[in-house]
């Protein structure tokens, strides 16, 4: 009796230890393992590992890209599009992601391409990605310190009360304001979640936010939608072609 108990205990300890060891693999090792699984055509497993890394809080463009590929290969178009879009949110210029996203979108039934951005919209996006959101914030902080230091020097020391210092202070003030604005803007963009990817096919968009609303159109897996409004259960979504309707929020994974 006691022998069996010992064996059981031992096996539990061993199991726990091995599980612990699996946890202790470094992210890079797990990433490489997922890449190997991907090469061996075991896409679902690979996607699982990538997803785990993402869930742990690593948001790297390449991780999203690889996860998108694995999902694409295991025919989960919605998740593939979601991960590519995530990668693009971090780096909108990445050619490989743009290419693979276009491929994934070919699988989306009823996919309508978004209007191409105008040149100033592109500039605006490039400008936003000049720094990371935290970069903008840090910049604003540094500039503020410099500005204040300058102002104090100007106020308190007579020899700094020159024209050059005044111009310098004006420029620093403007830059500081811009950095602060951009940091608030990128923060709000990152927290708005007003776009989403539809996660399953054949969803009926309804005219009103309840189950009995009139059917307007059908949403398919992988479609990118704008979330305009939301109640507890229902989200009002808008397609790229301008159609709007209500769907259950759980069908749309917000970016």
């Amino acid at each position: 009796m006691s022998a069996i108990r010992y064996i059981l205990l031992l096996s539990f300890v061993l199991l726990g230890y091995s599980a612990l060891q699996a946890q202790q693999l470094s992210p890079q090792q797990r990433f490489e393992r997922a890449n190997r699984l991907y090469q061996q055509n075991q896409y679902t497993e690979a996607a699982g590992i990538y997803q785990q890394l993402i869930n742990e809080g690593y948001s790297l463009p390449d991780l999203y890209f690889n996860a998108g590929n694995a999902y694409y290969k295991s025919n989960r178009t919605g998740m593939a599009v979601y991960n590519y879009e995530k990668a693009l949110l971090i780096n909108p210029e990445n050619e490989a992601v743009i290419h693979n996203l276009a491929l994934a979108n070919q699988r989306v039934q009823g996919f309508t391409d978004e209007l191409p951005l105008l040149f100033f919209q592109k500039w605006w996006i490039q400008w936003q990605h000049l720094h990371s959101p935290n970069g903008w914030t840090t910049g604003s902080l540094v500039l503020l310190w410099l500005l204040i230091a300058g102002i104090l020097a100007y106020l308190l020391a007579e020899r700094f009360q020159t024209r050059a210092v005044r111009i310098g202070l004006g420029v620093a003030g403007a830059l500081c304001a811009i950095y602060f604005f951009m940091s608030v803007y990128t923060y709000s963009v990152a927290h708005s979640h007003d776009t989403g990817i539809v996660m399953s096919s054949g969803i009926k968009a309804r005219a009103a936010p309840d189950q009995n609303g009139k059917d307007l159109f059908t949403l398919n897996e992988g479609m990118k939608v704008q979330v305009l409004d939301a109640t507890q259960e229902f989200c009002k979504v808008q397609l790229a072609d301008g159609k709007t309707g209500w769907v259950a929020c759980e069908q749309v994974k917000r970016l």
Partner: protein
Amino acid sequence: MMVSQVYIRKWGLSLFFCLGILASAAAQEFRFTTNVSSTRVAQDEPFQIQFMLENAPNVSSFQPPALNDFEILQGPSQVQGQSIFNGQRSEYIALIYVLQPRRVGNFTLPGATARVDGKMVRSNPVTIEVVKGSPGAAQAPPPATVPGFPPRRSAPPGIGDEDVAEGILRKGEDVDAKLRKNIFLKVEVDKTSVYEGEQLTATYKLYTRLPTNSSVTRVPAFKGFSAKDIELPNPPQATTERLNGKLFKVFTIRKTLLFPLQSGTLELDPVEVDNQVRLVRLVQDNNRRNRPRDIFEDFFNDPGFRDPFNDPFFDDFFNRPEVTYEDVPYKIQSTPVKINVKPLPVDTRPISFNGAVGNFRMSASIDKKALTTDDALTLKVVISGQGNVNLLNGPKVDIPGSFEKYDPKITDNIEKNSNPLSGSRQFEFALMPLEAGQQTIPPVEFSYFDPLAKAYKTIRSQAFTVNVSPGKQTKRDQEDFSVDKNVLIPVRKTPQQWVKDAAFLLGSTWYWILLLIPLLALGAGILYRRRLNYRQNNADMLKHRYANKAALKRLELAARYLKEGKEHAFYEETSRAIWGYLSHKLHIPFADLNKQLVQDKLSSRQINGQNTHELFELLDNCEMALYAPAHSNDKMQGAYQQAVKVISQLEEELKTKKELI
């Protein structure tokens, strides 16, 4: 075997009595039987029944059974004869009827009774099953093989002899009424209430008793149905059918299997037929005999030739009616038929149901159990049975994401002219495994509605397990780094910087603290500056306040010089006192002082007129006295008085103006 038969067409049994006596000598086996040509007949189909009395020694009466359910077409005809077989002679008497059933059903004829040798005997009873008329049943009369019904001269043998007479339009007969009575269309449907998708058969038939050349001008469109025509023989084959006691030739125009596609009341469109009916019109021609005429022509043209003596309109042999042929156009239309289509029940409908109605079987199979990711797998699903096979949609197959699925290849194998429609439809799904490993294809599910059971039925196949091993395609993926338009760019393998997402700085308290510190410093700096400025301003204020005093102090010094009579020193001191006062009062640095600036400053403070004038006069006087001494004590005294007056006046004025400002 030798058989001789004698037909006797009249009632009566006298002869048969004599023969019966004659035959009694032979000690042969006695038999009394009932024979029918067929025990299963269609309605409108004539059949023969025979009551046979063999070797009856002394027949005194012969009574047929009641034939109420049948119409006697012919008979009774009595046949008697004898046969000699192997030196044995046998005699028989038979009563023969040709009957036609009046109703559908099973009928038992009890058998005929006869009194033989004073005893009553009864023949065996016969059961006759009468089914609904089906064309082309056994015993069909010779068909009219020529399409378009040319007017016939000679009647077909047997029962067809009634119809030709209708081709003659007798005097006083209404053409329309005649046509209406003798040509019409009928639509027969086997069901009038069906489920959506359930098969029904519609047959469009042309009934005619007249020679006619017909063509179908409008075929029904079958709106709301999916139609499948049954191929009919070409040229059309006629059958005969008895309707209200009259014999019609029946041509099937169209026979279609219909599958309603929607529920509700649907209408079968009518069919339209254009007929050219050839009628023979009898015309009384009195001038006929005056005309020379070929007797043969007459002979051949005469439609009444066949049976002139029976023709009631036959007057006399030499006054035969002149005939003309007339082609009468006659358009007919069938009456539309309403079909009530019931919707399929919704509550119990399985998810996998997609429109199959009937009775089906399904089999599913895969062609490989193990393969590599380079190969393709075929999942074959065969659905066979009876019902709307031609409308079958593919079964529900949940192919897992690890397979690429292509649209199925559909192969039909529908039995030609089957009714109900039966056959099979085969779906071949080509599947490309994308992932290696043990993969499972879930069971294929197929549901159909059984209209007989009025319920849905679901068939499921077993699940399939496939072993997929990685193929060589992996290698190709690795080598291909060029951006092809349709090839996925492979995963990135570069080592990553595994830094977890930093929280947003903007949301952290540290940021706001760090933001607040310089602002506080700025505030402190500004306060300090203010204080500094205040202090400076205060010093100015004190200077200003003591301006008068300072001036008087300076002037005191000047007064001492005046007393001592030091003229140069006096003027110098006076001038300095005034300039000093102005410098302090008007905040002008000593170096910048000049008359013009002082005047501007004063005028900007709205101090003008006498006072200013006196001030400048005094300053001028002082300068003059410095460079050209007058050595006059009075003048010095006057200058001193003036200086005191000017300064005190200015002081006053600056005060009031300051208050105003």
